[in-house]
C-alpha cells in the first residue's frame, strides 16, 4: 500500500526532475567537454559561410523547402556508406546552425555532394529531376523557385565538399 512519501506530489516531482536533469547533463552538457566536438575541422572551415553570401542564403533555402527531410548529411563508418566519401567527424559540423544530419535518406546523401556534380547539372536536376535522374526519382520539381533562390541553393550544394588534404 501507499506509504507517506507517496502522498506528497512535491517530493515526487522533485525526484523525477532530478533524474531527468542527470540525463540532460550527461547527454547535452558533457559533450561540450569533448575535444572532437568543440574543435572545427578544415572541412568545417569551408562551411563557415559569411553572412549573406550565396552559400548562406542557399542553406536557408535548403531548410525552408525542407530538403533535409529526404537528404541526410552524414557519412558513417559503416559498409552501407562506404562509397559516400570521407567519414563525417563531429568537428565537420562546427559552424552548422542547425546541423542538417537528419534521419531519412529518401534521396541520396548530400554530405559531399559538391564533389559529384557541376552547377549546370544541379540546375537542370532541380528543374526536372525525373528527366536528369530517371523516371524512378520521386524528387519534386523545384522549377517554382526564383532564379535567385536556385542559384543560391546550387552555390550551397557545390560548397559541400571535404577540405583538400595537406
Amino acid at each position, binding site marked *: 500500500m501507499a506509504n507517506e512519501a*507517496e*502522498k506528497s*506530489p512535491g517530493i*515526487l*516531482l522533485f*525526484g*523525477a*526532475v532530478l*533524474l*531527468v*536533469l*542527470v*540525463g*540532460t547533463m*550527461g*547527454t*547535452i552538457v*558533457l*559533450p561540450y567537454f*569533448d575535444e*572532437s*566536438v568543440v574543435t572545427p575541422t578544415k572541412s568545417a572551415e569551408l562551411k563557415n559561410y559569411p553572412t549573406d553570401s550565396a552559400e548562406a542564403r542557399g542553406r536557408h533555402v535548403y531548410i*525552408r*523547402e*525542407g*530538403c533535409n*527531410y*529526404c537528404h*541526410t548529411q*552524414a557519412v*558513417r563508418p*559503416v*559498409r*552501407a*556508406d562506404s562509397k559516400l566519401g570521407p567519414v*563525417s567527424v*563531429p*568537428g*565537420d*559540423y*562546427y559552424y*552548422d*546552425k*542547425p*546541423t*542538417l*544530419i537528419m*534521419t*531519412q*535518406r529518401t534521396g541520396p*546523401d548530400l554530405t559531399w555532394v559538391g564533389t559529384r556534380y557541376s552547377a549546370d547539372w544541379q540546375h537542370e536536376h532541380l528543374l526536372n*529531376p*525525373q528527366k536528369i535522374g*530517371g523516371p*524512378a*526519382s*520521386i*524528387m519534386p*520539381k523545384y522549377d*517554382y523557385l526564383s532564379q535567385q533562390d536556385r542559384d543560391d541553393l546550387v552555390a550551397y550544394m557545390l560548397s559541400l565538399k571535404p577540405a583538400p588534404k595537406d
Partner: protein
Amino acid sequence: MAQSAATTHVPARDPYASATVKMLIYTSVFWLLLSMVLGLIVALKSINPDFLTGNRFLQTYLSYGRLRPVHVNTAVIGWMTSAFFGAMTYGVPALCKTKLWSEKLGMFTAVYWMLNYLFGAMAIAAGYQTGVEYAEMPLLFDIGVVICVASLWTNLFMTVKNRKERVLYVSLWYWLGSVTFLAIVYIVGNIPAGWMGPGMAQANYYYYYMHNIIGLWLTPVGVGLLYYLMPKLVDRPIYSHKLSLIGFWTIAAFYVWNGPHHLINGPIPLWLMKAGIIPSLLLLIPVWSVLANVIGTMKGVWYKVSENVSLKFLMTGALFYGLACIQGPFQALMGPHAILHYTYWTVGHAHMPLFGGFSLVLFSGIYYMFPRLTGRHLYSRAMMNWHYWLSVLGFVIFGFAMWTAGVIQGFEWMDGKQLGASFLQVMESLHVFLIGRAVGGSLMFLGQIFFAWNLIKSARSGKPIEQTEDPMLLAR
C-alpha cells in the same frame, strides 16, 4: 462544472464535466483528421512527385518538404498533445475527487493552445521552419507552447494540492511527471540553433528533444491514461501498484539518456553513443513493468475485450506500445542500426508508438470520456468497430510496408547502391511498398472518419443517459 453541463440538453449528471475537456477533445479530433490528410498527401507525393503540383501556389505551400513537418507536428502537438491535455484535465480532478482548480485557466490553455498551433503550423508551411526535426515551429510559437504547458501544469498541480483523496493513484504520478518533463524537454529542445555553440553540441539538443517528446511526454502521459482506464474498463484494481511505480522511476531515469541513440555510428564521440545505447536497452524494464501489469490485471477477464470496444482499443494500444519498445532497443544496437538507420524502417517504427500505441490508447480514453462529458451514449457501436479494424489493419499494412522497404533499402545500400543510377534502381524496387503505405494510410484515415462521425452523431443525437442506469457509466 454545473454551468457547462447546463448547455447540453440533458440534466447535469457529472458534477465535474468540464468545458475545457470538451474544447481540448474536439480540437484534438480536428487535428487528428488534418494530420491524416497531410500524411496521406505526403504518402501520395512519394508515389507520384507531381501529385498536387498544379500551380505555383500548390508547388510552394504543399511541397513535400513543408507538408511533412506539418504532418508530424499536427500529429504530435495538434492531435496527441491536445487529446492528452484533455484526458488529464478530465482524469486529474476525477482521481482527486474535486473540481479542476481553475476552469478559466483551463479554457485559456485550451484556446491559446489551439490558436498557437494553428499559426505555428501555418508558419512552417509558409517557409519559416527552423530545420530541426519535430521542433520546426519558430521561436514565437515555442514560447506559446511553454506558456500553455506552464498554465496546464499550474492547473493540474493545484488540483492535486486541493484534492479530497489523500492517496495519489499512480496515474497522477505519471501525469504530473509527464507535464513537468514536457516543459523541460520542450524548453531544452527548442533553444534556437546558434545559441548553443558547436554544431554537434546542438545536435544533442535536437535528438534529446526528438526522442524525449516521445519518451518523457507521450509515453508517461499515455501509460498514465492506460493505468487510469484499465481498472475502470474491467472493473478491478490494477495488478501491482509497486510494478507501476518501478515503471515510473525507470522511465524518468533511463528514457532521458536516449537522445544519442539516433546518432549511433554518426559523428559523435564513441562514449556518447554508449551513453545512449545502454539506457536504450534498459528501457525494456519500464515497458515490461507496464505489460506485466496489463497481463496481471487482465488475467481471467480477457473475455471483456470482446464486449467492450474501448477496452479492445486499450489492449491493442498496449500491445503496439510493447512491440515498439522491443523494436527500439533492437534498433539501438550498432549492427542493426548500421543497416536500418536512414531507411523507411524508421518511418514504420515512428508510427508504431505514436499511432499504433498511444493514439489507440487515446481513442479508448475518448470513447470512455465522451458519454460522461456529453451525458449521451455513443451513437454507434458498429462505427466504433469499423474505427478499430480500419485503424489496426491500416497500421499493420502501413508498418509492414515500411519495415520491408527499410530492410531492402538497408541491404541494397550495403551492396554499394548509394549514389546515382544504382540508388534509383533501389527506389524503383521500393515503389510498390510506397503504394502499400498509402493504402494502409488510407484505411487509417477512413477509420478516423468513422471516429469523428460517430462522435458528432453522439453529441447531437446519442441516446441521453438516464439517471437510473448503470452506475459504472456515470461514475468517473
